[in-house]
């Protein structure tokens, strides 16, 4: 067994919460630059120039690139040979969120009661934590600070098993067209196909953690990613919904076996402010 102090988790989470809010991932900046070069409308160029300036300013001045500094979602891969000492993993993560959001002057964006909505928890806790036990003695934290505007445009469909790939592509493209400028395109789309209700949603979220634009290792899914991307970019929604060919930067698909009666499909929408990062202990 390898001992890991819970304070190491807290420190790693506090550091990640700040870094991912100040530093837009390099691959996202590169993707924005690429579509800026090929953009055909003045308004798309204006928006993309602002986003590139914004990313530079945030990194230099260490202020968040978006005022929505997100709800913290953590996928923990915990080696089965790890013995955690101190707080439990959930408390250690929340302590990191509390510390990171305070130190970084990040926005507390969580209300304690979803219906009454009268009390902000004040420190952006609790985080949403997905724990997975894996072989080995490492502990990995994959952390995202998920924005509300894009999350709101996410969707889940329980399709009929014979609906097939065509309906999956259509459903996603229709949803993105309907969402228009609301989720802050250009977008990154996480898609989960199969499993059951919660598994599909979890896959869709997990798919967003893959480095931007890295295709699925499964050739059939890599093809599907391209097909969905083409359909979404054919909607004409464009950057901030103001028109254009660049509605999404990438589509990431994960799949899982499912019941003979079901075809669950989940779409998790991510804005261009793709706050995520990884720490290994």
């Amino acid at each position, binding site marked *: 067994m390898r001992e890991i102090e819970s304070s190491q988790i807290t420190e790693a989470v506090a550091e990640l919460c700040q870094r991912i809010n100040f530093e837009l991932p390099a691959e996202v900046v590169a993707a924005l630059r690429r579509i800026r070069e090929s953009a055909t409308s*003045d308004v798309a160029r204006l*928006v993309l120039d602002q986003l590139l300036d914004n990313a530079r300013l945030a990194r230099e001045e260490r*202020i968040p690139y978006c005022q*929505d500094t997100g709800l913290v979602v953590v996928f923990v891969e915990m080696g089965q040979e790890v013995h955690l000492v101190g707080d439990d993993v959930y408390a250690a993560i929340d302590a990191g969120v509390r510390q990171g959001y305070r130190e970084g*002057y990040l926005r507390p964006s969580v209300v304690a009661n979803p219906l009454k909505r009268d009390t902000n928890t004040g420190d952006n806790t609790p985080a949403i934590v997905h724990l997975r036990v894996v072989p080995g003695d490492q502990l990995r934290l994959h952390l995202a600070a998920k924005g509300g505007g894009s999350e709101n445009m996410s969707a889940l469909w329980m399709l009929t098993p014979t609906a097939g790939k065509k309906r999956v592509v259509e459903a996603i493209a229709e949803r993105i067209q309907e969402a*228009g*400028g609301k989720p802050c395109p250009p977008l990154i789309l996480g898609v989960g196909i199969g499993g059951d209700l919660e598994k599909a949603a979890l896959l869709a979220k997990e798919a967003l953690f893959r480095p931007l634009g890295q295709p699925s290792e499964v050739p059939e899914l890599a093809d599907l990613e391209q097909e969905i991307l083409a359909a979404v970019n054919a909607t004409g929604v464009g950057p901030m919904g103001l028109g254009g060919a660049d509605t999404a930067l990438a589509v990431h698909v994960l799949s899982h076996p499912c019941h003979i009666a079901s075809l669950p499909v989940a779409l998790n929408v991510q804005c261009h402010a793709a706050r995520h990062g990884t720490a290994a202990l």
Partner: protein
Amino acid sequence: MSLDAKQIQLPLTAEVIGDLHAGDAVELTGVVYTARDAAHQRLVTALDGAEGLAIELDGAVIYYCGPTPAPPGRPLGAAGPTTSSRMDAFAPRLYAAGVRATIGKGQRSREVREACREYGCLYLVATGGAGALLSSFVTEAEMVAYPELGPEAIRRLVVVGLPVLVAYDLHGGSIFPRDADLG
């Protein structure tokens, strides 16, 4: 429409509003008030009842924004727009009460477009996710109402050259490609 930004001094006059068209780029200088979901609910509750209004709505510009806390040496943190459609249920009431423009992101309901035309108002969009950049145009920030709402409180901001686009104008025009003519 023109992307050569027009400089606009707030408060907005009827003449200035009438000259603007969907798609025009403008840079705003003057006072705007932040308000989002919870603050809108309270403002409309105040309009419905005897309770006094927390801010003067007549002539106001409302920015749908919940900024990050101010780090040392800055008036406030990141300050970009949030999704406007969540405020659609409240916006026509506020336009009727004297609000001259709202600033947010994304398309809105037909009722909001009609309210802009009926009351001679504007809906403006700023670039979503450009919170660091947009914050650089804010020179002063002061909490003026509902501090208990934290990021959702109403703040009075002084902006200098805040870059926005006219999304809905008083002529019924829209910047969004899929919005049909109002007729």
